[in-house]
């Protein structure tokens, strides 16, 4: 008779978050401390995940309430210290009045779609559940969920309707500023930064790397650049080197030795970025290692091309791309910029050399031949 009651008035009999005893529950209720890991699903496939704590009645499924007419849904994002992301959605009707969580079908979800990709790994559904505190709907991307590298566009998925783009709200990313605590507990290093796209929609920029070589302070000297960085997930051996690989494969790679920094070596060259490091956790638990490397500009001459910078932990290991991803800034290219230096090659031709970050936040160096500058020098 309980089932009959559900059939006539499913919402009244089964408030969210309450599971009547003796009835099968699809999933354990979520909580912030131990969020359930969402499944990666094929885009367009019927939504399988039963939102948490919904009572399922196999023979006579409780009819879902019809999806409300949602206009301009916004989402507030919050990054926690373990680099999990919480999405809190605010839904509005056509008169810009906020829609209550109880008006939203329980299958509602935040849908992340990897731009320019299709297939099972290109879509992720994060179920929306009401928060007791403010009655809003919330979805969680746990730090334990891997998000393949790229730009993930965020959508609101309501019942069978075509998902609609989510608009950015207030993004509290302060815990990302100093790199958060990229956990080495996993076998990978994941960074996810919510941002506003050119069209004003919400997307999440993701990196998934291991090992990872994080670029830190970079000084442009007269004839060289001096880079400090930190290697995550690999050890620096005595044969560790920086490799500059030319985009134009006709030139040969340039290799220079990398010097591991000793404890407390972060003297006057310190910069505000990068997590605070205590000596005891440097190598043992985190296996992260700070290094300094000096790349002479003359080694990149002559020529007119870009060089991509990699770090090879040892002669026997694959090189790791140098990048700057451990903070709250999704696009480094325009914010982390460096002066250029003019350097002459053996024949006296002048080149302009300038380190820069690519659109994917990888570190490269651009060498530009300055025509007609030679005589002036």
């Amino acid at each position, binding site marked *: 008779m309980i089932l009959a009651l559900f059939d006539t008035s499913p919402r009244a009999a089964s408030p969210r978050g309450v599971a009547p005893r003796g009835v099968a529950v699809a999933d354990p209720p979520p909580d912030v401390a131990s969020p359930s890991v969402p499944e990666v699903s094929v885009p367009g496939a019927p939504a399988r995940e039963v939102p948490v704590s919904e009572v399922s009645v196999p023979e006579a499924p409780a009819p879902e309430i019809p999806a409300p007419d949602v206009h301009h849904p916004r989402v*507030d994002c919050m990054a926690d210290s373990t680099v999990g992301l919480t999405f809190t959605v605010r839904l509005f009707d056509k008169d*810009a009045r906020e829609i209550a969580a109880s008006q939203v079908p329980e299958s509602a979800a935040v849908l992340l779609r990897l731009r320019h990709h299709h297939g099972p790994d290109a879509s992720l559904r994060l179920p929306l559940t009401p928060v007791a505190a403010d009655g809003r709907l919330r979805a969680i991307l746990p730090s334990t969920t891997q998000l393949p590298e790229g730009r993930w566009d965020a959508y609101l998925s309501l019942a069978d309707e075509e998902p609609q783009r989510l608009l950015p709200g*207030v*993004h*509290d*990313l*302060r815990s990302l*500023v*100093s790199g958060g605590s990229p956990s080495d507990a996993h076998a990978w290093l994941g960074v996810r930064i919510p941002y506003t796209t050119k069209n004003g929609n919400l997307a999440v920029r993701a990196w998934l790397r291991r090992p990872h070589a994080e670029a830190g*302070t*970079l*000084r442009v000297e007269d004839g060289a650049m001096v880079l400090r960085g930190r290697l995550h997930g690999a050890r620096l051996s005595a044969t560790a080197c920086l490799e500059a690989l030319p985009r134009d494969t006709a030139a040969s790679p340039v290799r220079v030795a990398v010097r591991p920094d000793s404890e407390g070596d972060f003297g*006057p*060259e*310190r*910069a*505000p*970025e990068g997590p605070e490091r205590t000596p005891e956790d440097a190598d043992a638990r985190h296996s992260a290692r700070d290094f300094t490397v000096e790349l002479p500009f003359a080694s990149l001459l002559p020529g007119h091309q870009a060089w991509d910078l990699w770090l090879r932990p040892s002669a026997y290991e694959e090189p790791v791309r140098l990048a700057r991803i451990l903070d*709250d*800034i999704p696009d480094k290219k*325009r*914010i*982390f*910029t*460096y*002066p250029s230096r003019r350097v002459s090659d053996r024949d006296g031709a002048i080149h302009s050399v300038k380190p820069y970050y690519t659109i994917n936040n990888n570190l490269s160096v651009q060498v530009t031949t300055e025509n007609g500058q030679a005589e002036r020098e």
Partner: protein
Amino acid sequence: MHISFLIFSAYGMGGTVRTTFNLAQALAEQHEVEVVSVFRYRDRPFFEPDNGVRLSSLVDMRRHRPTFDGDDPEHARPARVFPAADGQYKQHSALTDRKIGEYLSSTEADVVVGTRPGLNVHVARQTRRGPVRLGQEHLTLATHSARMKRLLRRTYPRLDAVTTVTEADARDYRSTLRLPGVRVQSLPNSVPEPDVAPADGSRKWVVAAGRLAPAKRYDVLIRAFGEVVRERPDWGLRIYGHGREADKLRKLIDELGLYNHVYLMGSANPIEAEWVKGSICAVTSSLESFGMTIVEAMRCGLPVVATDCPHGPKEIIRDGADGLLVPTGDVRAIAGGLLRLINDEGLRTRMGKAALSASARFDPAQVAARYEELMTSLVNRRAGTLHRARGTLLGGAYAAREAARLGVKYALEGART
């Protein structure tokens, strides 16, 4: 009361738009409030008014719309009511003159509020008999040209009240313009409580935000931060905003070798999420008619190191209690102020907390209550007196005499600003 705000464009993202919406929304708790935008450039405003605030526009500048007014020949003829002395004269036209005039002569509002001098002139000259006429000054009298000052002296006597954003500017209005029968009152801009938890003072970043314009003196801030870095290389500076100084500032950062410590971040909206990533706010302007960013940062729990420039900062910050005031343009003093807070975490945290509670006085609800008081008393005063006629006559007489007497002085002031 029915309150109507007249604004250049409610579709922009500048300070006047923000503060007008904040005030309108707070007043809408008790009153019928509309915002009338002279121009409409976008389908949707950056800041969506809610709480029942009605938004309408007079001239449609959206090219893709059949209602587009930009090609109207009337819009090609110069404005006669909107004054040439106002910086936005060029955008206005005979069409805006007519549309604004039609709106003001038929409005049902009890109180009409103009939000910049040019629009205040419209309100003074074209509002039908009946409604209270209120003109807001979001800049300062001192920064207006001599021509503008003469115009205001002639026109403002037909207003019931002029509001300024600082007490210092209100004093200027009272002493230099002398507007008989016109209430001159300072009412600060309002800033709502942010949607993020306040900063806790633990992050090693100084944050600044605002247009990259010469008056903001970010060059001074960058030089001062160079001195900070020499002592505390573990701290950084983020500057939010865009503007024509960007390239110059970029060069300065590179020249001083500060590119690992000072970052030009571009614009951010909402800015509150960026304030809380830092622990100290820096404002090094040579001029702040109010100082909206100071209040915004304080509402996020940041102590502010600000130059003691005219007029806003000293009316917002209590020096040594909830922030620090330093001499304008003084690189060493600014660096000193920043280092004092950087090197003393206890002081930083205490001042941050003091800033958080002191800035509550700028909450829209509190500012709106003061506006409501002013508006109510003006509506009541109007109800029974003929003051308008008297004020206008007196104002006209004063204006003629004073303009002749002060013409030379105004010209000098104009040259100085």
